């Protein structure tokens, strides 16, 4: 009979990487970062335009 033992960190990592949530977190983080990057440049533009007017 197989004995129960705590899963190793490596197994947990592999399991997490294979789960659909891993891809989703990567995906949504990339999208959020892209939006944030464009938003940051837009904020600079907004600041400059407001300063001009």
């Amino acid at each position, binding site marked *: 009979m197989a004995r129960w033992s705590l899963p190793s960190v490596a197994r947990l990592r592999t399991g997490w990487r294979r789960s659909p949530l891993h891809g989703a977190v990567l995906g949504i983080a990339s*999208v959020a970062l892209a939006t944030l990057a464009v938003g940051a440049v837009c904020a600079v533009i*907004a600041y400059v335009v*407001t300063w001009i007017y």
Partner: protein
Amino acid sequence: MLFRPDRRDFTLIGFYTGKVVFGVGLAMLIPALMAFVLGERNEVYAFLLGAALAVAVGRTTELLLYSREPMSTSHGLATVALSWLLAPVFAGLPLLLSGHYASYLDAYFESMSGFATIGLTLANDLDHMARSVNLWRHLMQFIGGQGIVVVVLTILASAGGRIGYLYTGEGREEKILPNVIRTSRFIWRVALIYALIGTTLLWIALMGAGLQAPTALYHGANLFMAAFDTGGFATQSSSVAFYRSPYVEAVLLPIMTAGAFSFALHYQLWLGRHSELVRNIETRTIAVSTLVMFAILAVGLGRTATFTEVGVMMRHGFFHVVSAHTTTGLATVPGRLYVTDWGVLAPAVLVTAMAFGGMAGSTAGGIKAMRIGLILKGVIRDVRKVLLPEDAIVVQTFHSSTRKMLTDNQVRAAATVLLLWLVLYFGGGLIGLFYGYELQLALFESTAAASSGGLSVGLVRPDLEWPLKVVYTAQMVIGRLEFIAVFALLGYVLAIVRGRV
């Protein structure tokens, strides 16, 4: 060679269209269940009636027109177009019975706006609409956004290879995975997992905005469907402005962006290939056009002194540029302010952003970043040809999953579709002018309908002239199906009219 469809062609198209109508009927059971749980008795009957009718018509059509013939491109395209025209016929019934729509045309318009993920609404007194009916409006966007035909046929069809052409007809030209069924499953997996994450984030943000937990969850789920499917419906008539929360708006921004990203790009990002974000021709095009459009919008708003504080201008301006560019249509200010307070430049930017749209193979509409990018690359190549010595060989490449060489055919095809889009936008605008509306208003609303942009300056309302409602409905379906599917259906109709059957 003349196009001479025979009875077998129509049988095949009818058979698959029946499957789609059947699927729409089943989908109506979700709001029916919600109406039952919430004790909205009249709505339970309305949804059950709509569902029964759709299931009966769909199943009868399937049985009467049973076919095992192989499906060709024209069959697939005509089926998609016919399905998109018929689905709102049944989906609009519960809307009409809810009492919030003045006529069946208004209910059909609303359903088409839902399935085509437009976001324009003809609802009366939206703020007091039954929750199940409001859920159905948003659910239509979710179903339409993920591809009504792919959805229904993925679930119901047993013959996988034969539905490939239906998939192409929706403007999703890339097969992310080797076959359509697996690709559709991936699309659904992305949508459902993002729905889980996005709704949770919105739920928290909405509770922070002062909504009770159950109400916040309901609004969050609906807002997610409207944002991720670039639909633009809202549970309240004042759209996102109702919540007065910058946190809600901040959560919505990446959700709208994710909706405008192609599923091919989502696939790359899910695999951890982040460099695709920087190298992809579409993300580059969208990033640059967003920056340029925001800069012009900021100048426009600055000149009219609409917002005196930089933070407020950034908040409303950036949200609207993203909402328009992703063709979502959610708004943080009432639409009439675009005309009365935003001057001329800022609304022009919104029209341009809606016209450009998101990425090919996403839930967004419009011309698409891929086509804009290819045309710009073509212009660059031609300029280089002029500047370099005559015997120089000019090679232009672009990146979309892999590095590809730009061909004349690609640029020509992109330019042809661009021309069709412009005809669609200006055609609707001209008809608006015919009915006496100002050019700015007519073009704004026409572009919003055709591109699935969904922002409105207030022209689309229940007392709009009925021919204009018909025109905008036609623009919605033509724009959503990107012309070719509608042309295929017209080909079959003309064949009947000319007696070539």
